[in-house]
């Protein structure tokens, strides 16, 4: 019997899926957004770590779909549906403002823009957001357990909490 739990790591501009009892996590989210899509009943989940909101802003031809909110969310949805996921819900975290000094760059509010883009992409696919921990000015490490559908969030110098 397969009882060993594996933790699947998702990097920046990356998307992966897991099935229970494995868990899935991404480390050090700043202005990026971690989006978990999951089917509670079947214990299937996927996590996307997007860096930028909008793929139409890309300055290169051959783009990495997992880097942008507008392309990564539909990709993740498709990956889950291929695994047989049906009643899919979302939990999201990230979108912080990381610079305490010198925020006035062209990337001002990038966290907010990422968050709005993820919310927009989820709305488009008719996926409801069950819970979220977004904004603020602290980085986050998140881990999702498809067995319990709990997302744990850890911030520097703070206790872990769940959403």
């Amino acid at each position, binding site marked *: 019997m397969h009882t060993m739990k594996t933790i699947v790591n998702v990097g*920046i*501009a*990356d998307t992966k899926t897991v099935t229970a009892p494995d868990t899935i996590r991404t480390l*050090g989210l700043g202005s990026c957004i971690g989006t978990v899509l999951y089917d509670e009943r079947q214990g299937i989940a996927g996590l996307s770590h997007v*860096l930028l909101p909008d793929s139409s802003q*890309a300055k290169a031809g051959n783009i990495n779909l997992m880097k942008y909110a507008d392309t990564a969310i539909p990709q993740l949805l498709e990956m889950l549906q291929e695994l047989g996921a049906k009643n899919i819900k979302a939990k999201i975290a990230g979108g912080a403002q990381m*610079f*305490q000094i010198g925020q006035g760059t062209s990337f001002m509010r990038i966290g907010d823009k990422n968050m709005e883009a993820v919310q927009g992409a989820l709305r488009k696919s008719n996926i409801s957001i069950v819970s979220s921990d977004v904004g603020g000015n*602290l980085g986050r490490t998140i881990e999702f357990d498809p067995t319990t559908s709990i997302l744990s969030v850890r911030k520097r*110098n703070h206790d872990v909490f769940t959403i």
Partner: protein
Amino acid sequence: MDVFQLTGFQKDILKEIGNIGAGNAATSLSRLLGQKVDMTVPNVEVADFNEVIALVGGPEQPIAGIMFQVEGEITGVMAIVVDIEEAEYLVQKLTHNQAFQLSEQTNGAALEIAMSALSEIGNILTGSYLTALSDFTGLHLQPSVPHLGMDMAGAIMTMGLLEISQVTDYCIIIDTEIRQEEEEHEQIRGNFLFIPDPESFQKLFATLGWH
């Protein structure tokens, strides 16, 4: 030219840039501290975003990152990465004031002054790095205002990579470490990461006489 396929010769040119820039920055820091500052041989790497973050200790490593957009004839990003405790030590050493702390327990005013001091140190060191590079290449370069963040490396470093990430998933990174030791005991270690935009390499190599 595929900029991500560097020849050994091109790598050497980029290492020389790290040598000249960080060498001058180390001299500046040494003058500020009144103490000897050493530097390591620069490391030139082609890395994706996750590998850049691995270079500074991994996504959860707490760091202070002072970042600049490099503007002018060569564009890119300069990031100075220091441990938060060592950044605090640096600020206290230069201000001669132990009240300036960078930990979260510090009250607002002291933390604000400490961060502002750290940004200013970053300004001076980046200015030294780019001035040396500018003198060496004859190209006009200047840093933007500093952007300072203190948190997990993943969260901080991605901010510096946003501009480049609109163009590519890889970057060429010139990484030079400087350190100050006292009685064989490490006090401050900082990494200078210079990440030129992909379109800047052609100009850089051409200017230095290799086509």
